[in-house]
């Protein structure tokens, strides 16, 4: 059993030059195909090895298919394995040839050697050719009943594979219930685990369409099933334990005794060497105790040590995975980790992704007792490690300063940073000092003394420069040479590339003017003149605004520009608590690493094969917003998007529910972009439509402009006479916006004719069909059996009225789910009828 030395495996890794070698191989294989002479197996083996290695390096050897199949009539297991491998690789591309292999694979499934039975069954299921599914049912059924556990493990996963090739065949053959029976009775733990994984996947995919499946899925979480798994937990392999524990985490025990029983049973899993098992157990503990605050805290204490051990052992990647989870826990309950802060100190050689997490944790756990040590450590990083982390650590010091009560010492540290004379340190610190002064104006005296010494020439980064200028304006009465610094900055107006800095400069010089008019007057004149000539719209507008304001009344201007300010008490948090809770629900998964709930990165519903479908994805993700939107707005915007997508998910929002609650701010903030997209609309429609169409397009603009005011009551046509504009045009961004603004006016289920489902092999089929009915597709996606489409249509009489449709079609159950949104709710039903009748005619023509 000892591994052979490599020298015994001579194998040329040289790349063959071309077809010569392949046809050569073909010849040789033919020679050996029929031969039964002793020793042929060995030479066949060498040939097969060559074929496999050609295949691996990317040379197409599919032309050897028939020869390989001919050679496969052998009892040599190594040859068989190589042949299975070859067939599995090329069967998908050559379904006709794959048929050739069925015969010998089926025969091997009945071999007396269980090893061969298992391998053949696995290969058979891995062919992934849809028209061969009928041949799978028999061998799989036998495989489940095989007396050897190896074959049964293969068969259990084989059924899952069959389900993915053809769900209906799998369900019709009653395989799920056979799996269930096997899962609850098989003596072999790996068979049980594979049944569980297969069933979980099948039932959760079926649950959308079949009530029975969703009932079965629920049944997995009942007490007898969960206890059955828990009692056998020690028999499972480490990987299977992860799967079982993941299931247990979803179980809701009936009372606290049950919770304690389960935790007692699983406590030793925390000592398992496999980190994945430890994390899975932690998840169970955390979720079971959510409602019991005290115990929940004790769970944190209990799992802390194992998690810290995992972080400090294993590869960087593994410890990163665990550290991300620890990070999540620290963020949820920082006070429980406040004494462990030393574990979050960074090592010099750690990768920056680890350091970044640690910095955030250090920031979170800082409290009165450990602030001094933590800040000292963070200051070390500011001087000692790579630049991005140094910046992060300065920001971390600032954050601690903003959340602490005893800021005294920290302010001193920050001011020390300014004396380090490193550009990036100075830049970050200036931004922080500005924030600090907004919260604690009482520190202005100390800070200003130091900030005054900084030469503006050493500050190049826009954010830092803006912060410095803000302070110059805000505290110009305390800084002796503020007017002169500002003046010199204004002299170099044209060299200043950042509009943000120029905007700040205008405001600062005006503030300065109100405090020290004689010294600033000249600079103010120069700034206003430069601002008015500025090519940047915002800068120009602000300059003009200030100019007119000053012209109107200087004291009003002072009240506008420099009102008495209240200290900022709390800076906005960037992530809503709802998101955080969702991430916690998905503990031990990618969500924690990405710090996003899973629907934000796995939902493919809005992705489709078309280029603009990517933009639709934003509809539910909502992270991207325009650069000119201020952070506060951005947070608000993404919160709205979240709201939107969650309510979409739960499908609980009725047609008239609080839709306006979040669409209102969207109107205000996107006022500019509305006009922008309207012009875009005009241009696209002009490009695409015939010239004769232009007047209609301009009509559309008028109506769209009226969008923010209540639309003029239009005569409602009777439902039967609804006519659609065959040449409706709507660009993706407008679609997106409308989809976000409108509430669902109709949500219906309908069925599709069998011909329709048969015709619907790709999304494009339906797309062309609906176009014939004046309903246009804007995005589509999905794979059989589930497709998803977004359609739009425009009312012929009233071009302002669009109908937006989300349509999910399940071809295996011949069902469609339709959601209609429209500006004109009264005709939604008529439109929906029209849509359904169009849908029902699919495949008829």
């Amino acid at each position, binding site marked *: 059993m000892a*591994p*052979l030395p*490599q020298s*015994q495996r001579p*194998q040329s*890794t040289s790349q063959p030059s071309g077809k010569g070698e392949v046809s050569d191989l073909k010849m040789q294989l033919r020679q050996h195909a029929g031969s039964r002479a002793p020793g042929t197996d060995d030479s066949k083996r060498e040939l097969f*090895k060559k074929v496999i*290695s050609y295949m*691996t390096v*990317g040379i197409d050897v599919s032309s050897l298919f028939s020869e390989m199949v001919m050679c496969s009539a052998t009892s*040599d*297991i*190594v040859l068989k*394995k190589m042949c299975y*491998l070859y067939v599995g690789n090329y069967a998908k591309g050559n379904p006709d040839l794959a048929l050739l292999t069925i015969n010998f694979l089926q025969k091997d499934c009945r071999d007396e050697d269980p*090893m061969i039975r298992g391998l053949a069954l*696995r290969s058979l299921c891995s062919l*992934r050719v849809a028209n061969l599914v009928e041949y799978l049912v028999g061998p799989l059924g036998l495989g489940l009943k095989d007396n*050897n*556990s*190896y074959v049964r*493990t293969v068969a259990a996963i084989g059924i899952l594979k069959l389900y*993915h090739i053809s769900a209906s065949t799998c369900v019709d053959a009653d395989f799920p219930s056979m799996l269930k029976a096997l899962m609850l009775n098989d003596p*072999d733990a790996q*068979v049980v685990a594979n049944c569980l*994984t297969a069933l979980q996947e099948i039932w959760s995919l079926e649950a959308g369409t079949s009530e029975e499946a969703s009932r079965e899925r629920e049944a997995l979480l009942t007490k007898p099933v969960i206890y059955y798994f828990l009692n056998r937990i020690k*028999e499972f*392999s480490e*990987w299977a334990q*992860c799967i079982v524990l993941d299931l247990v985490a979803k179980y809701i025990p009936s009372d606290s005794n049950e919770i304690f029983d389960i935790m007692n049973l699983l*406590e030793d899993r925390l*000592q*398992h*060497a*496999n980190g994945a098992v430890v*994390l*899975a157990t932690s998840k169970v503990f955390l979720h079971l105790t959510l409602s019991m605050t005290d115990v929940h805290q004790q769970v944190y204490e209990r799992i802390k040590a*194992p998690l*810290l*051990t995992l972080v*400090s*052992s294993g590869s960087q*990647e*593994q410890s*990163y*995975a*665990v550290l991300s989870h620890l990070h999540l826990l620290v963020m949820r309950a920082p006070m429980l980790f406040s004494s462990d802060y030393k*574990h979050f*100190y960074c090592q010099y050689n750690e990768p*920056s992704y680890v350091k970044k997490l640690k910095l955030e944790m250090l920031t979170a756990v800082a409290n009165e007792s450990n602030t001094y040590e933590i800040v000292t450590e963070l200051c*070390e990083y500011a*001087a*000692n490690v790579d630049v991005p982390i140094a910046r992060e650590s300065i920001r971390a010091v600032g954050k601690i300063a903003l959340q602490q009560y005893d800021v005294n010492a920290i302010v001193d540290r920050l001011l020390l940073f300014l004396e380090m*004379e*490193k550009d990036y340190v100075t830049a970050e610190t200036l931004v922080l000092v500005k924030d600090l002064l907004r919260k604690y104006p009482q520190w202005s005296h100390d800070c200003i003394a130091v900030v005054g010494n900084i030469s503006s020439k050493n500050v190049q980064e826009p954010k830092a420069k803006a912060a410095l200028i803000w302070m110059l304006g805000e505290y110009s009465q305390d800084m002796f040479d503020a007017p002169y610094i500002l003046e010199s900055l204004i002299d170099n107006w044209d060299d200043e590339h950042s509009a943000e800095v120029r905007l700040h400069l205008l405001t600062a010089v005006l503030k300065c003017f109100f405090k020290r008019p004689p010294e600033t007057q000249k600079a103010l004149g120069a700034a206003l003149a430069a601002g008015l000539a500025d090519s940047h719209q915002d800068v120009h507008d602000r300059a003009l605004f200030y100019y007119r304001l000053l012209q109107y009344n200087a004291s009003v201007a002072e009240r506008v520009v420099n009102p008495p300010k209240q200290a900022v008490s709390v800076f906005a948090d960037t992530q809503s608590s709802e998101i955080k809770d969702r991430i916690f629900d998905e503990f031990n*998964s990618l969500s*924690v690493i990405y710090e996003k709930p*899973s629907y934000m990165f*796995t939902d493919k519903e809005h*992705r489709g094969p078309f280029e603009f479908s990517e933009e639709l994805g934003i509809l539910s993700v909502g992270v991207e917003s325009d650069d000119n939107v201020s952070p506060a707005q951005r947070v608000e915007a993404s919160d709205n998007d979240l709201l939107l997508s969650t309510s979409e998910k739960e499908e609980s929002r009725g047609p008239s529910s609080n839709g306006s609650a979040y669409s209102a701010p969207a109107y205000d903030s996107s006022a500019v972009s509305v006009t922008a997209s309207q012009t875009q609309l005009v241009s696209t429609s002009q490009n695409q439509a015939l010239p004769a169409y232009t007047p209609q397009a301009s009509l559309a603009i008028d109506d769209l402009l009226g969008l923010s005011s209540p639309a003029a009551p239009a005569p409602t046509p009777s439902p039967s006479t609804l006519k659609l504009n065959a040449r409706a045009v709507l660009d993706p961004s407008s679609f997106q916006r409308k989809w976000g603004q409108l509430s669902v006016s109709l949500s219906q289920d309908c069925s599709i004719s069998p011909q329709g489902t048969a015709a619907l092999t790709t999304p494009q089929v339906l797309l062309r069909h609906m176009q014939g009915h004046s309903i246009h597709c804007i995005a589509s996606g999905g794979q059989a059996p589930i497709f998803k489409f977004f359609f739009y249509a425009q009312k012929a009489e009233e071009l302002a009225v669009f109908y937006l449709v989300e349509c999910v079609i399940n071809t295996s159950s011949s069902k469609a789910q339709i959601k209609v949104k429209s500006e004109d709710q009264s005709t939604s039903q008529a439109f929906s009828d029209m849509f359904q009748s169009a849908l029902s005619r699919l495949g008829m023509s």
Partner: protein
Amino acid sequence: MPVSASAIYFLNLRGDVLINRLYRDDVGGNMVDAFRMHIMQTKELGTCPVRQIGGCSFFYMRISNVYVVIVVSGNANVACAFKFVVEAVNLFKSYFGGAFDEDAIRNNFVLIYELLDEIMDFGYPQNLSPEILKLYITQEGVRSPFSSKSADRPVPNATLQVTGAVGWRREGLVYKKNEVFLDIVESVNLLMSSKGVVLRCDVTGKVLMKCFLSGMPDLKLGLNDKIGLEKESELKSRPSKSGKTIELDDVTFHQCVNLTRFNSEKTVSFVPPDGEFELMKYRITEGVNLPFRVLPTIKELGRTRVEVNVKVKSVFGAKMFALGVVIKIPVPKQTAKTSFQVTAGRAKYNAAIDCLVWKIRKFPGQTEPTMSAEIELISTIAEKKSWTRPPIQMEFQVPMFTASGLRVRFLKVWEKSGYNTVEWVRYITKAGSYEIRC
């Protein structure tokens, strides 16, 4: 749903696919191009081992000159995926005779395909234990363990072995000489401030075993850890002997250890796998004996001269000694000339890592060699930028010493045939990340 990998790729450093296996059809075949484009050819490489591109997530690890990439399309279990990669690589290593690199992969395509199919089915991890897989996947591969034809050596109870509960040991092993080797390997992590204050210090230890035992032996290991000793004295109802006891912060065990018994009796009892394995891992933060103290003084004299004095003190017993001691003392980038004197070992300037590297092959206990060096710098025209000093780093191994003070009190082997065994116990302490700021 737990991890279900859609594909696994092995790439070389240039980004060529060496070998791959697609487990599911839910990701496109061009996934590896996406990985190359978005990760390998950008600065992203090394910034984060988990990345999302398109709808898929990529987990990647570099092992020698190979990137192992797992692609998943859903919300997978990250810890499980990385653990799988690590275990799979260990498995390949044990098949290839220790090496896992580009050449080893190129020479073993067929074997790797076989193993990849066996350890993962449709994206779900199956059996990864080398002990069991080697029973039926061999490079010779002639025999199947179930095969009734191979009557010459039937493997008893093969079913249980392939999939069953005692997955780590097969029956019927026979050794002429029954031996057990036990190594306690500790690595000390230290972070010390320039003022000599210990900022952070911990020990991560492993108990490694190598067993050559016949039959199905039951082993019992006793350590001088606090909980174990207290429990024992409680059971025997007599006061625990005075002496040093160690408080383990956290322990994890190999799957062979009976955890229930550990929790109730606090003894480590197990049926070991055959050959080499890691029995347990532990972590200690309190009462660590640091083997070395480093006292640096670094003075910047003017703009072109730096004076470095480093004293290293060994604080373990005088009869012991450390091996392979390396002390890396950072110097500025613009170093032009160095001159130094050491009282032990050898030192040289390594410009590639901007360090003075001081090596002492054999370092006895209770001694304190020193190094004094003078460094001349190239005078730069640019404005004086203060030198950010990286920490001094140290490497060493101290045999027969444990930084935690952990000791094996007993190792009992019990087998029903009652043979005699020879037990060997060794201790070694290594430097983990041993950093002293200066």
